[in-house]
């Protein structure tokens, strides 16, 4: 059923705000243009009011959820390409159309480390994509190959690379045309280059030197699968890194004398970052860990760096201030961080700890593998390269190991878990799966928000966070049809 004048009013609902609040208010959308309206403007300027009114019975009308790290779903793996472009496109379509049942309306397909020759082929296919009834694939997130052997998780060791030529190494790995200049891709519409996020380890040779250039081109550089010390992680942020990939996992554990990557969440305002020359040579940490031969995440603590302060930072010149409740300006902006809130990759206490330290930077991801499917049974499932998964509830291991291999949790469940783990409101949890990821990607005017002019990608959640219906560009695409 559609509206005679194309305008729809959702009423009797709670709207999540950008500050994490939930307020009872109507939302007007234009279902023909697929955008959220400034209702007051429509009323007084266009002299129109919606012909169709949808009573949501007190439920929550949230921006559609955004998953910025998802490896596949419904049997399709974004990282598997066997040369059949059509089959791959069908897979993209399948995931985009089915994932809306989990409340997700935007996602960033994520590639695990590939054999080098596969990157340009897959990335050419992973352009922004959507159908009228599907979620939007926003582009791609390449996790690897510039990651640390010691923190590689389930990534294939032979395919890991260093970047001795800096940005040129990145261009040769992903294909230069897949890392086009920001001006070009920001202007671009669908069918254009889709680079969004690159997860890498800044301690790998040449990586830190490329971060600035990548950032300039509009790429979100994310620190992950990394053994970086505090000094190196800080330098990466100074160069423009604005995200941490699956916080706590595949990185040094929090050590009080060198809190490393996790410590960025508590970056002190009264320390300025060191000059880049102050670091140990970029190759040394990975070389050291390679020598140690430790490869499993289960033994991470053995490679946790030194027990004395290794950071040679100078106190900033800023003076102490006397205003309670205020915090001095940070020398740099703390990065966003994403977390797999399945209760397995992270203990609930860890989730609350991170969120308490830096709520504004928190992003929820699924990091889901191809077997993500809310209806799939437990057991052994095929992965790729002859390897197999074992799924036990929300747990997912490589067969025969205790290495976590991503997850099988849905994002709507992460939102509910998060609210439970942190004790925060559902509105605050929703923010971490909508507005925060949109802001991290710089798309908060169109996605992850209810601002006028934003895409009318919406999910109706009941008051316990269970999805009731999903809307894409103003049209209902999942759930029991409403009036």
């Amino acid at each position, binding site marked *: 059923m559609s509206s005679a004048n194309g305008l729809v009013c959702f009423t009797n609902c709670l709207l999540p705000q950008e500050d994490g609040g939930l307020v009872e208010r*109507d939302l007007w959308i234009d279902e023909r243009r697929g955008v959220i309206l*400034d*209702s*007051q*403007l429509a*009323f*007084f300027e*266009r*002299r*129109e*009011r919606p012909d169709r009114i949808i009573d949501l019975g007190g439920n929550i009308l949230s921006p559609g959820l955004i998953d910025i790290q998802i490896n596949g779903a419904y049997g399709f793996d974004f990282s598997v390409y066997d040369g059949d472009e059509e089959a791959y496109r069908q897979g993209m379509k399948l995931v985009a159309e089915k994932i809306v049942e989990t409340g997700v309306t935007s996602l960033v397909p994520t590639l695990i480390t590939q054999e080098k020759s596969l990157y340009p082929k897959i990335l050419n296919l992973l352009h922004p994509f959507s159908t009228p009834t599907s979620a939007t694939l926003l582009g791609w997130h390449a996790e690897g190959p510039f990651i640390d052997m010691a923190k590689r998780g389930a990534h294939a060791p032979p395919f890991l690379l260093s970047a001795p030529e800096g940005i040129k190494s990145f261009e040769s790995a992903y294909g230069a045309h897949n890392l086009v200049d920001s001006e070009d891709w920001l202007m671009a519409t669908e069918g254009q280059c889709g680079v969004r996020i690159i997860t890498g380890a800044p301690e790998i040779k040449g990586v830190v030197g490329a971060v600035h250039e990548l950032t300039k081109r509009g790429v979100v550089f994310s620190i992950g699968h990394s053994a970086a010390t505090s000094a190196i992680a800080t330098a990466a942020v100074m160069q423009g890194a604005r995200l941490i990939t699956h916080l706590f996992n595949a990185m040094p554990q929090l050590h009080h004398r060198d809190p490393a990557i996790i410590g960025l969440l508590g970056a002190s305002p009264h320390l300025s970052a060191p000059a880049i020359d102050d670091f140990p040579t970029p190759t040394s940490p990975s070389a050291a860990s390679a020598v140690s031969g430790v490869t499993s995440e289960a033994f991470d603590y053995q490679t946790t760096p030194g027990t004395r302060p290794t950071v040679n930072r100078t106190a900033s010149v800023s003076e102490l201030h006397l205003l309670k409740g205020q915090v001095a300006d940070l020398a740099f902006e703390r990065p966003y961080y994403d977390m797999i809130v399945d209760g397995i990759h992270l203990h609930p206490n860890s989730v609350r700890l991170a969120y308490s330290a830096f709520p504004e930077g928190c992003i929820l991801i699924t990091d889901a593998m191809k077997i993500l499917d809310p209806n799939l049974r437990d057991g052994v499932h095929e992965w790729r390269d002859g390897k197999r998964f074992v799924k036990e509830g929300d747990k997912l291991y490589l067969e025969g190991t205790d290495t976590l291999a991503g997850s099988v949790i849905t994002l709507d469940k992460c939102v509910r878990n998060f609210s439970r783990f942190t004790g925060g409101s559902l509105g605050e949890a929703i923010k971490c799966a909508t507005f925060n990821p949109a802001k991290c990607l710089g798309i908060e005017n169109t996605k992850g928000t209810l601002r006028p002019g934003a895409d009318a990608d919406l999910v109706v959640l009941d008051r316990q966070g269970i999805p009731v219906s999903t809307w894409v560009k103003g049209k209902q695409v999942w759930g029991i049809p409403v009036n």
Partner: protein
Amino acid sequence: MRLIIRDDPLAVGDYIANYIAKRINDFEPTPERPFVLGLPTGSSPIPTYKALIKLVKDGKLSFKNVITFNMDEYVGLPRDHSESYHTFMFREFFSHIDIPPSQVNILNGNAEDLIGECNKYEARIKEVGGIELFLGGIGEDGHIAFNEPGSSLASRTRIKTLAFETILANARFFNNDISQVPRMALTVGVATVLDSREVVVVVTGQRKSLALSKAIEEGVNHLASWTLSALQMHPWALIVVDEDATAELHVKTVKYFRSIESVQHEVERSQAALKAKGVLQAGAAEEQVGSME
């Protein structure tokens, strides 16, 4: 003039909403013969708006054939500013009812030709046959709309400079920064209000009690700042107040108005019965009946 006293602002809102709903429904408005309603902003009418919204949602009232005119708007404040009266009316009322936007009239405080805007407003009111019922509220000094003390009783829609008291009172809506409060407003005049066939004024809270006393227990006096007293010259005026607002009234005044409320009910009932029997001509019941002029 008639004075209705209710326990609290909520009961006042319910009373006025039911009253207006009855007037609109009895009027049986059509596209050709719409009901023309004047509306205020401010905190006093909010319970009335809430009650009217509920009547609309319950299907007991429709604004499909109602035309509205608002009393006033700031000059120079963007229409979408959180404190503009456009924003107030949309947020508190219009977004929740079924009125077609084309039937809503609010003065444009950003018009290039402000005087022309005021004249057009008066002309538009005439064009639709004049205002049937004007709902209003008052300030602590008894002003109606932005008709500050000293406003001519013959005034029409025009530009008005705000009294310093009003600017001070409104500063709380502008970060307590007086410099951010608009200095001017466009407002309907006292005569514009008095020209409407019926005036209903809501007065709640003890802070308005002195204004109420001055308006109904003393003579018509606009200079001494009680613009509301001009209502004494109107043949069909209704003031609905809560207990707090009666604090400055004489006991005998309160008693008198309480007693005529029941008389009024009696008269209205008998007139309605006569109309039902066909003794009265159709339309006669829309005329004022009763004992309160």
